[in-house]
């Protein structure tokens, strides 16, 4: 029996050695114990008979009711993705390009059509991982996570998702496949994904969550998922609504004051333009104002001034010391978002 072992051969081998010791002392066959850990359909290189196929079908069908209930469509307003509930309290895992940022308001739709309001928590921008929380308190259906990270290349898996958006008559779509490529931050399977599946769950046949759908290539075989280990690694920071890393899947919001300035010979910068409906206008900054200090720090040039603003988060309050009509005043501005 050959098994394709992608990464932690050492772990399996190590386990077997330990089991052998126990097995010997108990006098029971080692194979039985090993099979229990990994189902036979994943130990075989490929199914060999109708019986093997039935074993796969049985395992899949046993896992479907539970996993379907916890798989949701996510309405981003102007687009839709998928997600999966992973705790009774309503923590939802999805893709970063679905949640779109931190603190975003989204709608989560269950397979039966029930809608819940949700807010996006943290995300990992470089790997396409994100977390949401359903706002209403409740007891939600949820799935088990493969915390031990047991999925291996060649394993039989299934993908769920609301392909092309929510469709109550159709329900959640399920697709079968195998793990065909594995890397630390990406899983590739031959479960065919399409727009709307993004953020949906990838399961092993026991119904344990092993990944989240992210993207596809041109060929049908290129279906990419974020491995669950990426979520586990960043779990606490995501729960704390952190925007983690930089990358293609989410853009960090940039703070925005809303003024156009020019350097002043006497120091500071002069406000030449105040944008409509910007933080600056709201706080009462006016054309002709000279900004001398920001949070007690002297302003030296317009480049330095705008770079300093961009480093801050939207919503940050800054104090500006302004010279207006030969009088120094202080204005507090809550920065907006670009």
């Amino acid at each position, binding site marked *: *029996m*050959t*098994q*394709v*072992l*992608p*990464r*932690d*051969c*050492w772990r399996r*081998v*190590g386990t077997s*050695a330990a089991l052998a010791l126990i097995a010997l002392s108990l006098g029971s066959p080692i194979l039985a114990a090993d099979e229990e850990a990994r189902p036979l359909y994943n130990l075989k*290189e*490929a199914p*060999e*008979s*109708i019986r*093997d*196929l*039935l074993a*796969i*079908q049985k395992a*899949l*069908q046993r896992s*479907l009711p539970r996993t*379907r209930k916890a798989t949701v469509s996510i309405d981003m307003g102007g687009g839709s993705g998928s997600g999966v509930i992973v705790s009774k309290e309503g923590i939802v895992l999805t893709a970063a390009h679905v949640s779109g940022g931190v603190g975003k308001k989204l709608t989560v739709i269950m397979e039966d059509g029930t809608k819940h309001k949700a807010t996006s928590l943290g995300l990992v921008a470089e790997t396409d991982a994100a977390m949401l929380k359903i706002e209403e308190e409740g007891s939600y259906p949820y799935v088990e996570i493969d915390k031990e990270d047991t999925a291996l*290349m*060649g394993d039989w898996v*299934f993908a769920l998702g609301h*392909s*092309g958006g929510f469709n109550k*008559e*159709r*329900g*959640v*779509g*399920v*697709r*079968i*496949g*195998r*793990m*065909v*490529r*594995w*890397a*630390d*931050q990406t899983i*590739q399977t*031959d479960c*065919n*994904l*399409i*727009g709307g*599946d993004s953020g949906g769950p990838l399961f092993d046949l026991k119904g344990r969550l092993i990944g989240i759908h992210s993207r*596809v290539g*041109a060929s*049908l*075989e290129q279906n990419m998922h974020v491995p669950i280990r990426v979520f586990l690694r960043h779990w606490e920071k995501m729960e704390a609504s952190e925007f983690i890393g930089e990358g293609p899947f989410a853009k960090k919001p940039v703070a925005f004051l809303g003024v156009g300035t020019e350097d002043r010979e006497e120091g500071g910068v002069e406000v030449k333009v105040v944008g409509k409906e910007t933080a600056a206008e709201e706080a009462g900054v006016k054309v002709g104002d000279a900004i001398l200090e920001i949070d007690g720090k002297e302003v030296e040039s317009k480049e330095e001034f705008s770079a300093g603003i961009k480093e801050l988060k939207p919503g940050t309050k800054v104090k500006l010391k302004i010279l207006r009509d030969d009088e120094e005043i202080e204005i507090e501005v809550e920065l907006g978002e670009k």
Partner: protein
Amino acid sequence: MMKRSKSKLSWARSRLVVCGLALTCAPLAQGQQLEAHLRLSGSTTREAFEPLRAILQQCSAVVYDGWKSISFGVVITSDGYLVTKASEIEDAKELNVRVDKTHFKNVRVVATTVEWDVALLKVEAKDLVTVEWDTDGEPDHGTWVVANGSTSRTRRRVRVGIISANAREVGGGKAPVVLGITLDTNKKAGTLSISGVEEDSGAADAGLEEGDLILSANEQEIGKIEDLQEVLSGKEPGDHVKLRVKRGDEEMEVEVELRTREKIFEDERSRNDAMSGRYSKRRSNFKRILQHDIALSERSAGGPLLNLDGKCVGMNIARVNRCETFAIPAGEMPEIIEDLMPKTNDP
């Protein structure tokens, strides 16, 4: 694109050596792939489905136009009646069929139904092996299903997948035949007027114009879109509808030939279609379908969909997109076939 942690792997290798175990296969480095023959539709995986391939070998048909295979078919009687996907064969000039290894040059299109996009074919044969329709109700999500994949002249191959969504109606009951007009509804006045006439449609040929007010169709008064849909329901391409319209102060009556919807109105290509490869021309407006995830090509619809018992649970009717294929459920087939079969007066 993919990060590799080499240190962990080399450590893993050294550990293996320490354990002194012989490896049946070299450990795969991150980034290596599962070989193609082991994947879902790979040759080794397909071998497990051999008993079902053997059934498809006998009870599915390959439909050709000259040398080119254009569709598959389902053998429904031992004396040579087959069903296939109608819209894929309608332009065929030299229709011929192969069942198992036998080639049939003379193929008669007995009847078609635009409602289900099914055509009934007849070849001169006896002792063909027919499909065994499944009568246990529609298969559940996750049930293995098997369909015809690419084929050679002598050997059928399988493609495999699972039932992947609820059985249902698709397309919201739109009539599969059209006049070729778009409409403006005036709810207050309860009237319907033509806002556009499609090129190459029956409406264009009949001389209908934008602005024409529709008064009646086949003697039935028309006030809203639903009235018109009712007149069109059950009609086949080539049928005519008598329209009475008002243009300015003038009333006139025209005969409009009905044509198939997908020939007149082009589907808007969505972003999801763009990532789907080739899909069937007719892929919507079916009263009831099973959905599965077998990656068929647009030319491999029309054949049987088998479960692991070898029973036929449906007839593949459309490749829809990258992850969806539709089949007509077996339960719908007896009625469809009965409607298509020639009526005889024999006792």
